């Protein structure tokens, strides 16, 4: 009984994790510039990895494999934002300009909901 519940739960986690990874990859292709692509890649690095590894953890049960999966997750959660930040800094230093809303002809320009001019709390 419990194993059935765990099995279906891990199915759910694995599949939603894979869906997250797919969406992240689609976002990587759809986004218009480097910095927006980083946001898309962030989905795969955080939620996608968390869900897939959580699904595998439920299958692993209490064993060494579980510890190693936790360690992988720990590593990904520490390294992916660091790599992302280093990449952003290198790109800025290399002369890449982020595409901002002012230069982007979308239907919701920045003036609609712009909190930028308010004084900081």
């Amino acid at each position, binding site marked *: 009984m419990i194993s059935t519940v765990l099995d279906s739960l891990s199915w759910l986690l694995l599949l939603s994790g894979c869906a997250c990874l797919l969406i992240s990859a689609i976002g990587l292709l759809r986004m218009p510039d480097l910095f927006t692509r980083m946001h898309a890649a962030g989905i795969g690095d955080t939620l996608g990895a968390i869900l897939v590894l959580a699904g595998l953890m439920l299958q692993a049960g209490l064993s*060494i494999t579980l510890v190693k999966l936790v360690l992988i997750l720990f590593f990904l959660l520490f390294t992916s934002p660091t790599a992302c930040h280093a990449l952003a800094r290198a790109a800025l230093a290399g002369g890449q300009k982020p595409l901002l809303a002012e230069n982007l002809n979308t239907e919701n320009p920045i003036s609609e909901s712009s909190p930028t001019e308010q004084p900081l709390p």
Partner: protein
Amino acid sequence: MMFEVAAVALFPAMFLALARAIAGPTVYDRVLAVNTFGTFTVLMIAVLGFMTDQKDFIDIALAYALINFIGTIAVLKFFAVGDFGYQQESKK
């Protein structure tokens, strides 16, 4: 069964990341795509390990996660300074 499905679902994601690595207009896009591809590979290796019931694959996934990070930092440093040995940080 479920691991096969997950592995099959991971393939197009990796393929799309690779497409961005090939298409990416700047070198930074390529680095980002390759880094994401590396994350997908780590997850793929872990899933494959469960699929073939060889839990040793998890060790390989862990090693890959390490190398992925170090590789990204090395490539970025090379493009930023043109040199691996340049001192950019003090220890404190």
